[in-house]
C-alpha cells in the first residue's frame, strides 16, 4: 500500500508540483467577485495616477465662466460652486485617499505583526503589558482621539495624519496575530524545530511568521479599505486632509449641500469611494477564501434535498425482504462530486440480533456505508443502489420518513464523542431529546427515562451526571452516553462507527462490554465498524473486510480469521501486531546512552483568565527511572495521563529537571551546559512525533524539512543536500521528491520523512512519541519494519513511547509500564508481557483485543473499574489502589500497607503484594 502510493507520487515527479501558492491562486482566479474586485482596484489606481494627465484642468484651477456647470465636453464631470473641474478634483482626491489608505495599511500591519508576534511568542509580563496597551487603545474610540489631535498636526501634513491613523488602526490585528502566535508555538512542527536545536529567532522567521503571513496579507488588504473610509470620514468633518488639498472626504463634504440640485458634485466622489472600498473588500474576501481550504466551493452544502438517486429504487417491502432482515444493502454506490467512488457496489445483510463486523483501513468506505444506511450523507454525495431499513427504502426517501427511521429503527454510535455531543446542552437533555423525537412523552418523563438509560450503561450517580455538560465527562463516560442515546428508542439495529478508537485500552474494554450488554438486553442487531481486527474478533458473528469501497471478503468470524481467503485479509491479519509475538531478547552489553533517575515534573493547575491563580498541582512525572542502552529499544507504555509524553518532553528539553537527574551519553543535563554542549547533545539525540501531518511544516519543501537539524547544527548547503538525498533513500523515498511539499504525501510517507529528518544528523538515540499510532495497520507494519532495519544498520537506540502493547511486543527489548507518573513495572519485554507481575500490567494486557475470535471469547478481559484518573490528586500510598483488582481481594492489614506506603520499584514491579 505504501509502495503503491510512493509509486504514484514518483510517477508524477516529472510534472511541476502543485504548490500551495498555485492552489490558492487557482481558487482566487475562480472567485469571480474577487477577480472583478482586483480589476477594479487596478483601474482605479490607473485613474488616480494617470487621470490628472488626461485633462488640462488642474484640481485648483478655477473656470469663472462655468459655475456649477453640469458634465460637458469641457468639464467631463461638471464644475463646482467656484468653477473648479470636478473630474480633476475627484481624481486628485482619489489619489490622495489611496496613498493615505495604502500607507496606513502598511504601517499598521507591520506594527500589528511586530507587537502581536512578540506578545505571543515571549508571553509572560511583556506579553501581558502589550495586551494592556492594546486594550487601552481599544477603549479609546480612535476616531475621537484622531479628531482631537489631527488639527494640531497640520504642520506635519498628511504624513503625520497617516502616522496618526496607523497608530490607532493596528490593535485588533495585533490581538489576532498574538493568538495565532500562541497557538503556533504549540504546533508540533514548531516544537520539533525547537527540540532539534533551531534558535528562537530562526523559529520565528522560518516557521511562525510565514504561518501568519496569509492572515497579514488579507488583513492589510482589508485595512486599505478601512483606512480610506476613516480618512474620508475624518476629512468630511474637517479633521483630516486640509484645504487647499482635497481628498474624497473633503469633496463629498463640499458636494453634500448641493447633492440634490447639482448631483455631480456629490456622486462622483462618493461613487468612487464606494466602488474602491467595495472592490478592496471583495479582493480581501477572495484572498481569505483562497487561503482557507474550508471555504472551497466544493464543500458540500449540507442543507439539502435528499441525495440524488442514480439508479431505480428497489421497491420497499418487496418479496426479497423477510422479517428477519433488519438492514439490507444491495449494490450500494456512493460518490462525492467527481472523485473516485467512496463505496463501489457493496451488498450487506444484517439479521435480527446479529453482530456484523466491518473492518477496513482509512478510505475503505466503511464509515460512508454507515452514514448511507441512515441517509446521513451530505447532499454532494451521489448515492445509488438500495438500502432497506426496517422495510423502508432509505435511498431517495422523504425527509419525514428518514426522520422516523433515524434513532428509532436504527441508531448510531459515532467515534469522537466529544465532538458528537453538542457542547452547550446537558447530556440528560440531549438524551431526552432523542426520546421526544420519537415518542409523545412529557419532558419530565423523557428526563426520567434519560436517567434510567444512563444507569443502564453503567454511569455512576446518573441523576447527577444527567445534569453535566459533555466537557465535564471523560471519554469513556461520553461514549456510554452515546450508547445510551442509541438504545433510547429500542432500535432494531445499532450502527457503531469506530466506537472505541480514541479510548484507552482499559476504557475500550469497558465500553465494548457495555455495548455487548445493551445489545443482549435490547436484542438489537449491531454493525460494528472498526479498523481494529482485535475489536471485531471478540464480538462479531460475521465479518466483512472492506478496501477501496468494495467488500473483498465476507465470512463467519472464525472462518475469516482462521482461513482468510482474500490476500488482502491475510495482509491485514499479518500486519496486526500481536502480543504473543515477542522480539527475541538480546543481551544488554552496551553502555547506556540515556539514564534517568527520580525524574519529577509538576504542573500548576490555574484558574482565571486575567489574574491567574494556582489552585493545585499535577504530578505528571513523579519519580521515574529509565535506562536506555545503545542500539536497544526501550518502550515506555501507559494510558493517557500516565506521564509518558511528559517524561519524553523533559528529556528532549535539555533543561535541568525539576527533580531527579537526566544523563545523556554520559553527561548530566544541568544549567552548566553551554550552547555548544547543547548542540552536541542535540546532534546525538533526535525525535519523531506522533502526527506526521502536524510535525512537518507545510510551507517548506521536504528537502528543507529534512535538512532542518543539519542547518541547526550549522552544516553548509551542498553537504546538507547530499545528506538529504542519502537519508531519503535510507527511509525508502526517492530523493527526487525533496522538492515536493509535505501535503503531497500520504501519512506513512510523511512519517518516513520525519524519520529521515531525525536520522539526518546521524544520531545515537531516537526519541519516538507514538510514531505509528495515527497510521493504518499495514502502513504501521511498514514503518515498524523500517525502524527495525534502521536500528540494525545504524545502531540506533530508541526511546519509544506508545499506548499500544502489541506494538511494544513487536519492537521492544525493554519495556517500562507507567501509571500516574510512575513506573509500575519494568524489565525485558518478553518477561513483562509474557509473565506480567503488577496487577496493572496484567489488566492492561488482558484488555488488549486479540485478533483471534476463539481466544478472545475464551478469555474475557479483566475489567478495571473507573477511568485512568487525572493526576491532580495525589493519593498517599499506592496510586493504583482505587482501581486495583488485587487490592480488592486483600485483607485489611494487607490493605493498610497499600494505603500508607507507596510501593518502590524492586525487581521489576512496584507492588507490595507480588
Amino acid at each position, binding site marked *: 500500500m505504501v509502495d503503491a502510493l510512493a509509486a504514484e507520487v514518483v510517477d508524477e515527479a516529472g510534472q511541476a508540483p502543485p504548490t500551495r501558492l498555485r492552489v490558492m491562486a487557482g481558487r482566487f482566479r475562480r472567485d469571480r467577485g474577487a477577480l472583478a474586485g482586483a480589476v477594479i482596484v487596478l483601474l482605479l489606481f490607473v485613474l488616480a495616477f494617470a487621470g490628472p494627465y488626461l485633462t488640462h484642468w488642474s484640481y485648483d484651477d478655477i473656470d469663472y465662466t462655468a459655475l456649477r456647470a453640469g458634465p460637458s465636453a469641457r468639464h467631463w464631470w461638471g464644475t463646482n460652486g467656484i468653477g473648479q473641474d470636478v473630474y480633476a478634483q475627484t481624481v486628485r482626491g482619489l489619489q490622495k485617499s489611496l496613498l493615505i489608505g495604502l500607507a496606513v495599511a502598511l504601517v499598521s500591519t507591520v506594527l500589528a505583526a511586530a507587537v502581536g508576534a512578540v506578545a505571543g511568542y515571549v508571553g509572560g509580563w511583556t506579553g501581558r503589558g502589550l495586551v494592556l496597551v492594546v*486594550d*487601552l487603545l*481599544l*477603549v*479609546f*474610540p*480612535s*476616531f*475621537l482621539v484622531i*479628531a*482631537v489631535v489631527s*488639527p494640531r498636526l497640520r504642520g506635519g501634513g498628511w504624513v503625520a495624519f497617516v502616522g496618526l491613523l496607523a497608530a490607532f488602526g493596528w490593535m*485588533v490585528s495585533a490581538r489576532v496575530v498574538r493568538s495565532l502566535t500562541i497557538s503556533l508555538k504549540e504546533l508540533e512542527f514548531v516544537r520539533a524545530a525547537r527540540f532539534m536545536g533551531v534558535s528562537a529567532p530562526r523559529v520565528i522567521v522560518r516557521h511562525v511568521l510565514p504561518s501568519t503571513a496569509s492572515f497579514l496579507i488579507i488583513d492589510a488588504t482589508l485595512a486599505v479599505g478601512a483606512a480610506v*473610509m*476613516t480618512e474620508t*470620514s475624518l476629512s*468630511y*468633518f*474637517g*479633521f483630516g486632509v486640509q484645504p487647499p488639498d482635497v481628498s474624497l472626504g473633503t469633496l*463629498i463634504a463640499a458636494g*453634500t449641500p448641493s*447633492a*440634490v440640485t447639482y448631483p455631480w458634485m*456629490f456622486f462622483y466622489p*462618493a461613487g468612487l*469611494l*464606494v466602488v474602491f*472600498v*467595495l472592490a478592496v473588500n471583495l479582493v480581501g474576501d477572495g484572498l481569505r477564501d483562497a487561503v482557507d481550504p474550508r*471555504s472551497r466551493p466544493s464543500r458540500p*452544502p*449540507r*442543507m439539502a434535498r435528499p441525495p440524488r438517486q442514480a439508479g431505480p429504487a428497489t421497491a420497499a417491502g418487496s418479496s426479497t425482504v423477510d422479517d428477519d432482515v433488519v438492514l439490507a444493502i444491495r449494490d450500494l454506490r456512493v460518490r462525492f462530486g467527481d472523485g473516485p467512488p467512496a463505496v463501489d457496489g457493496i451488498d450487506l445483510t444484517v439479521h435480527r440480533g446479529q453482530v456484523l463486523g466491518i473492518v477496513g483501513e482509512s478510505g475503505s468506505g466503511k464509515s460512508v456505508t454507515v*452514514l448511507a444506511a*441512515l441517509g*446521513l450523507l451530505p447532499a454532494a454525495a451521489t448515492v445509488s443502489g438500495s438500502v432497506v431499513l426496517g422495510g423502508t427504502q432509505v435511498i431517495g426517501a422523504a*425527509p419525514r420518513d428518514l426522520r*422516523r427511521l*433515524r434513532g428509532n429503527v436504527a*441508531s448510531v454510535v*459515532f467515534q*469522537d464523542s*466529544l*465532538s*458528537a455531543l*453538542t*457542547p*452547550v*446542552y446537558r447530556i440528560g437533555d440531549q438524551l431526552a*431529546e*432523542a426520546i421526544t*423525537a420519537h415518542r409523545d412523552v412529557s419532558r419530565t418523563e423523557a428526563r426520567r427515562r434519560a436517567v434510567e438509560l444512563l444507569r443502564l450503561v453503567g454511569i455512576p450517580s446518573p441523576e447527577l451526571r444527567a445534569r453535566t*455538560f459533555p*466537557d*465535564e465527562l471523560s471519554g469513556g463516560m461520553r461514549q456510554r452516553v*452515546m450508547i445510551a*442515546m442509541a438504545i433510547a428508542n429500542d432500535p432494531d439495529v445499532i450502527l457503531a462507527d469506530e466506537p472505541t478508537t480514541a479510548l484507552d485500552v482499559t476504557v475500550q474494554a469497558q465500553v465494548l462490554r457495555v455495548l455487548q450488554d445493551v445489545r443482549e438486553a435490547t436484542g438489537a442487531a449491531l454493525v460494528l465498524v472498526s479498523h481494529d481486527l482485535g475489536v471485531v474478533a471478540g464480538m462479531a458473528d460475521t465479518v466483512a473486510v472492506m478496501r477501496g469501497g468494495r467488500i473483498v471478503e465476507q465470512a463467519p468470524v472464525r472462518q475469516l480469521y482462521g482461513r482468510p481467503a482474500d490476500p488482502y485479509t491475510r495482509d491485514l491479519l499479518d500486519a496486526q501486531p500481536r502480543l504473543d509475538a515477542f522480539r527475541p531478547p538480546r543481551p544488554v552489553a552496551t553502555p547506556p546512552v540515556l539514564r534517568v533517575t527520580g525524574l519529577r515534573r509538576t504542573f500548576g493547575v490555574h*484558574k482565571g483568565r*486575567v489574574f491567574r491563580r494556582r489552585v493545585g498541582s499535577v504530578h505528571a512525572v513523579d519519580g521515574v527511572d529509565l535506562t536506555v542502552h545503545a542500539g536497544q529499544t526501550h518502550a515506555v507504555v501507559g494510558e493517557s495521563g500516565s506521564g509518558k509524553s511528559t517524561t519524553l518532553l523533559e528529556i528532549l528539553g535539555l533543561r535541568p529537571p525539576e527533580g531527579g537527574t537526566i544523563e545523556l551519553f554520559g553527561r548530566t543535563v544541568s544549567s552548566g551546559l553551554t550552547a555548544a554542549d547543547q548542540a552536541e547533545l542535540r546532534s546525538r539525540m533526535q525525535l519523531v512525533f506522533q502526527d506526521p501531518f502536524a510535525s512537518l511544516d507545510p510551507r517548506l519543501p521536504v528537502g528543507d524539512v529534512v535538512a532542518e537539524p543539519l542547518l541547526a547544527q550549522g552544516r553548509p548547503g551542498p553537504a546538507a543536500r547530499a545528506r538529504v538525498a542519502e537519508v531519503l533513500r535510507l527511509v525508502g523515498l526517492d530523493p527526487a521528491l525533496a522538492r515536493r511539499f509535505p501535503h503531497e504525501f500520504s501519512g506513512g510517507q510523511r512519517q518516513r520523512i520525519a524519520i529521515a529528518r531525525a536520522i539526518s544528523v546521524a544520531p545515537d538515540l531516537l526519541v519516538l512519541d507514538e510514531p505509528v499510532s495515527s497510521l493504518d495497520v499495514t502502513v504501521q507494519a511498514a514503518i515498524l519494519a523500517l525502524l527495525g532495519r534502521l536500528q540494525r544498520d545504524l545502531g540506533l537506540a530508541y526511546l519509544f513511547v506508545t499506548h499500544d502493547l502489541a506494538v511494544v511486543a513487536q519492537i521492544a527489548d525493554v519495556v517500562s509500564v507507567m501509571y500516574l507518573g510512575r513506573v509500575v513495572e519494568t524489565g525485558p519485554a518478553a518477561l513483562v508481557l509474557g509473565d506480567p507481575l503488577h496487577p496493572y500490567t496484567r489488566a492492561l494486557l488482558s484488555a488488549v483485543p486479540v485478533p483471534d475470535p476463539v481466544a478472545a471469547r475464551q478469555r474475557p478481559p479483566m475489567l478495571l473499574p473507573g477511568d485512568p484518573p487525572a493526576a491532580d490528586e495525589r493519593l498517599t500510598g499506592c496510586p493504583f489502589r482505587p482501581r486495583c483488582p488485587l487490592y480488592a481481594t486483600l485483607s485489611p492489614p494487607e490493605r493498610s500497607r497499600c494505603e500508607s506506603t507507596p510501593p518502590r520499584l524492586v525487581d521489576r514491579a512496584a507492588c507490595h503484594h507480588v
Partner: protein
Amino acid sequence: MLAFLARRLAYYVVLLLAAAFLSYLLAATALSPRAYFQARLPPPPAAQVDRQLRAVGLDDREPVTSRFAGWATRAVHGDLGVSITGTSVNAEFGRRIGVSLRLLVLGTLLGIGAGVAAGAWTAVKQYRLPDRSFTLVAFLLLSMPTFLIALLLKIGALAVNQASGRQLVAFTGESTPGLTGSGLTLFADRAVHLLLPTLSIGLVALATYSRYQRSAMLDVLGADYLRTAEAKGLSRRAALIRHGLRTALIPMSTFFSFGFLGVLTGATFTEKIFGWHGMGEWFIDSVNNNDVNAVVAVNLFAAVTVLLAGLLADVLHAVLDPRVRLGVRRG
C-alpha cells in the same frame, strides 16, 4: 462565575482610569481654550482671558498634571466641570446621554437581531442565490462610511418628500418642534424622526454582524453534533437551529464588544447629520470650540459604553457557553 465577572470588572476599572487620564492629557494638550477666548470680538485683554481660563479650570500656565488633579478631584465627586461657555458639563451630559442611548440601543439591537438571522440563513445557503445576493448587499453597506449611508438616506428621504409633496420622512432632530396633539401623534412623530438615524446605525450593524454570524455558522455546519442530532431523528431544520445556531452564537459575544466601538463612532456621524443633539454631535462641536472639559466628558462616556459592552459580552459568553461558566478546560 461571579468571581470571574468581578475580575473582569476590576480590569475594566483599571482600563477606565487609564483612559480617563489619557483623554484628559490629550485633550488638554491638543486643544487650546485660550484660542477660543482670544478669538472673541473685540479681542479681550490678556488678564481677562486668564481669568476666564481659570474659571473653567483650564489655565494653560498651570502644569497639565495639576490641572488633571483638579479635574479628577471634582470628577470623583460627580462634577465633570464647566464647559467653555460657562455652562455645567453635567447638565449638558444629562440632556444628551438619553438622546444618544435611544439611538444606539435601538439601532444596535435591531442590527444584531437581523444580522444574526441573516448570517445564519446565508451560511446555510452558502454559495447559493440568497447567500450571494445578501453578501453583495452586506459588502456594499460595509464599503460605505456611516456618514455616507446617512447622507444617502437623507438624500433619498428628500427625494421621497419632494416627489410626494409632503413631509413623509423626517430627517432633522428628534421631533417636530412645537408639535402638539395626543400622545399617539407625538409618538408617531418621534417614530418618524427615529426611522432614518436608526436605519443608518442598524444597517451597518446588520452588515457587520451578518458576516460574523455567517462565518461562525459555517464553522459549526460541518460539526459532528449536527449529524448526531439528525441521527437521533431530528429534522434538519431543528438540528440547525437548536444545535447549530445555538452553538454558533457563542463567538458572537466577542464580536459584540469589538463591533460596538464602530457603532459608537458611526453614531457620531449619524447624530451630526440628522441633527440629533446627542453626545457625538456635542463632541464634534466641542473639538471645534476647544472645549476641553466637554471633550473629556464625551470620551469618558465612550470608554464607559465600550467597557459596558465588553462586560455584557463577557456575561453573554458565560451564559451561552457552559464551558466558560464551569471553568472546564480540555487537555
